[in-house]
């Protein structure tokens, strides 16, 4: 049995009686047992997964209706709630938090008979791009365990890349799906803002973040997006996609399409030569496929990282204010404390990056400083939206490297906050403007992956997946050996 198969191949494998759900799930659990001590993709394993598998097998045997996922093991980033189980956000502050509700995305997958195999590691509250800020220790890149897997959905990326599960759900606030997808050589899709419900996702920067699929193939992302997308009465910001099928015409190709190569994303300081070469190669590939590529400038891009950190810190400062350890949290005796000193003491359990974001989030929107920071950041965001609107009048897609660099070593970037932030340069634009973006594995150089990012206009996931699939078909990448 090959644990490295795609979701679609898994489904046909079950349908053709090549293996049972129970067999696949127990093999996957064995695999996790074997490799995860080292990789640390998971924070928690679903201890009723085998039981779930047996139930689905029984349904299959007795010819009952079975959901589209046929018991495939899917991992879930640990900032997405599943009722009755822990959701820690990789924070000590939520060490014992048990969610009373299930996120819409997990409900939808469960009702299609997917099995949530476990909860995956992340940077604390999704603030980071390497999992080095997880309170429970980092995840490791299966291509080279001395390197970071990317983040913040690093555990999700690792779990898929290392064949611990078929697919994963991540969340993407500024690249948190695409960055680890690129670093782990898998596919990661950040959908249009509002296409996928955020109900049950623990908010970090709620105006720009989305849940999305992280998969082995582009088709798998389309398959999962079919299930998790659409309007949700539990999320006022969701959009109606009229039950679009993202899989049916995915092999449409890119012939005649116009692709803009974003100048500001292909020449930033710190762009690695290998990444640049891979990108130029991808551009040539697209042209061979009949697309028309030309450079295009988005003048706001150089300001987007600052705008992104300003906006996300402001929203995080507000979203994380509720962690005062009064209604939920960890044990800490309150006797002798006054309210303010108690919660200040309790909140010192936040990790260093969260603490810094809290301080930034208190500073940049404050009455005396909002004009210099927060308002300007919002205006950069607005102007970027205008630029993007104009660009998509002319182009069908935009492309860039997903990340300007390849996976870096643990500890290599963490001490320089500014160069750390710059790693987000190419991914934050899609979040600030709400457009969909996907990272497609394109190359392995020096034993480490490089991903290509494709962006499309609002709600153009259909054509975006077509372009991604066209590119994916041209590459033949090695399997990770672990």
């Amino acid at each position, binding site marked *: 049995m090959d644990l490295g198969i795609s979701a679609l191949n898994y489904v046909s494998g079950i349908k053709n009686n090549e293996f049972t759900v129970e067999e696949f799930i127990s093999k996957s659990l064995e695999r996790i047992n074997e490799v995860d001590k080292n990789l640390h993709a998971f924070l928690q394993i679903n201890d009723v997964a085998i039981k779930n598998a047996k139930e689905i097998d029984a349904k299959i045997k007795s010819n009952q209706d079975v959901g589209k996922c046929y018991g495939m093991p899917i991992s879930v980033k640990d900032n*997405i*709630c599943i009722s009755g189980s822990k*959701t820690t*956000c990789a924070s000590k502050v*939520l060490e014992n*938090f048990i*969610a*009373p*509700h299930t*996120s819409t995305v997990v409900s939808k997958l469960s009702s299609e008979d997917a099995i949530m195999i476990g909860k995956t590691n992340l940077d604390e509250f999704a603030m980071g791009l390497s999992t080095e800020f997880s309170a429970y220790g980092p995840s490791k890149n299966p291509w080279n365990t001395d390197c970071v897997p990317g983040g913040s959905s690093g555990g999700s990326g690792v779990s898929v890349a290392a064949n611990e599960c078929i697919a994963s759900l991540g969340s993407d606030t500024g690249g948190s799906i695409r960055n680890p997808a690129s670093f782990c050589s898998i596919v990661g899709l950040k959908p249009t803002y509002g296409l996928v419900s*955020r*109900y*049950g*996702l*623990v*908010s970090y920067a*709620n*105006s*720009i973040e989305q849940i999305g699929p992280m998969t082995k193939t582009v088709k798998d992302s389309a398959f999962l997006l079919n299930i998790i997308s659409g309007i949700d*009465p*539990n*999320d*006022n*910001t969701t959009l109606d996609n009229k039950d679009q099928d993202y899989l049916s015409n995915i092999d449409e190709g890119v012939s005649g399409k116009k692709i803009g190569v974003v100048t500001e994303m292909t020449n930033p300081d710190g762009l690695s030569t290998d990444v640049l070469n891979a990108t130029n190669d991808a551009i040539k590939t697209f042209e061979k496929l009949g697309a028309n590529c030309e450079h295009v400038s988005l003048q706001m891009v150089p300001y987007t990282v600052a705008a992104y950190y300003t906006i996300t810190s*402001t*929203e995080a*400062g*507000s979203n994380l*204010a*509720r962690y*005062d350890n*009064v*209604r*939920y949290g960890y044990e800490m005796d*309150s*006797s*002798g404390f006054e*309210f*303010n000193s108690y*919660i200040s003491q309790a909140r010192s359990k936040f990790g260093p990056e969260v603490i810094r974001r809290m301080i930034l*989030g*208190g500073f940049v*929107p*404050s*009455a005396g400083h909002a004009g210099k920071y*927060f308002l300007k950041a919002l205006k950069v965001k607005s102007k970027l939206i205008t630029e993007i609107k104009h660009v998509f009048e002319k182009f069908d897609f935009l492309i860039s490297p997903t990340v300007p660099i390849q996976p870096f070593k643990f500890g290599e970037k963490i001490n320089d906050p500014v160069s750390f932030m710059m790693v987000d340069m190419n991914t934050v634009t899609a979040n600030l403007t709400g457009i969909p973006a996907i990272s497609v594995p394109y190359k392995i150089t020096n034993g480490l992956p490089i991903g290509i990012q494709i962006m499309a206009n609002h709600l153009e996931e259909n054509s975006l997946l077509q372009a991604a699939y066209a590119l994916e078909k041209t590459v033949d990448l090695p399997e990770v050996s672990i």
Partner: protein
Amino acid sequence: MTKIGLEIHCQLTKLESKLFCSCRADYREFQPNTNICPVCMGIPGSLPLLNKSAVEKATLIAMALDCNTPSKIAFFRKNYFYPDLPKNFQITQLNAYGNTSIGWEGKISVGDAKIRIRRIQLEEDPGRIIYEGATEKTKLTLVDYNRAGTPLVEIVTEPDFENPHQVREFLIILSDLLENLNVSDPGLEGAMRADANVSIEGGSKVEIKNIGSFHDLEKAVHFEITRQESLAEREIEIVQETRHWDDGRKITVSARTKEEEAEYRYHLEADIPWIRINDDTKNQLQVHMPESISSKKERYVSKYGITPQVAGILSSDRYFSELFENAKNETNAKDVANMITTDIMGLLDTREKRDSSKLNAEHLSALIESIKSSKITRTSAKLALDEIIKNGKPLQQIIDSLDLGHVSDEGELTNVITQILKEEAKAVEDAKQNPEIVNFLVGKVMQKTQGKADPELTLTLLKKSLAIG
């Protein structure tokens, strides 16, 4: 000149559910912390779901107060840490990027004065802190979150009041208006709260918070003016500050926490998109807006010939004006109005009595009809009212069971009169000299028949017996 401004908080108690979740808007009958859910408790992963009717009802208030209303409304987060605030921010409104609050720049007449409304906004109520013991110096705070998320409309006035009396008048008018709009029940405990700001000539503005009831608001304002005036007399500077109303001692005290330190970090609430309110919607709301109290009053006077005084009393009370509207017809309106204001209002003078009353408009019109057709007397009608309020049975049934029907049988009445004439021999003598005494004898007959005797027939028969007239 003394300047007083108000910030009124009014719960939309006529809504079924809270502002952002499906918990009950009226939390009053729940055990502590049983009217809560992940949304109003700010459990991680929950999202606010805006209540459509809350937007509509709040917009009605804005329209009734002559405000401008926006084409889009937006919500903001007001960030501060407090135990009664589950998310440690309050979802509220702010006119930061254009006018996006429910309403702005309205006005309302209070006597001869025009009070300008600065802004109206829709927001969530926090939970309630229930201290353990009586003092604040206890070791812990106990919180009941049942109220958290209750829809609240904040009405901010310009500092246009000149004295506490105007404040009281305004509050009465506003309460009646909100009740008439069927958005709130101002009589419910905690449904209407207010903060005030007060300044006298040459002094700084002082905010008074924590005022529990409208009754105390007038007192607090009065106290504060007196306090400031006495400071001014002694040439002591009036500092800009926030003071709390001490309910026990009925005074204002300086707030220990410095409010100027507050840094609310307002920013847009992205979980709720901006809500478009198009002209169609506004027109619909306008069309279905309950008739204003003043136009009701005018109509009662001009159409039904009711006295302005009675019309004023009737129109300003939603419960009784509804009863009136449903009971009145082309011919009985004046009588219905009079019976409500002279008899029924006295019988139903508390919320509890109204709630348990079984009286409906049919009863009332039947009652008027019966009096008019001399089926029962006004005195009997009062007895019947008592009974209807208690058990709600049809009027005829009550007339029968209490035997309230008119005695218009000549034979029966003659028997009673003969008896009275015997008992009141002196009066009978006097009546021959002074015809006015006849009325006294009519009264006696009424007494004997428990008010059931047909007054006209009684008079005729008496005169006949006395051979006068």
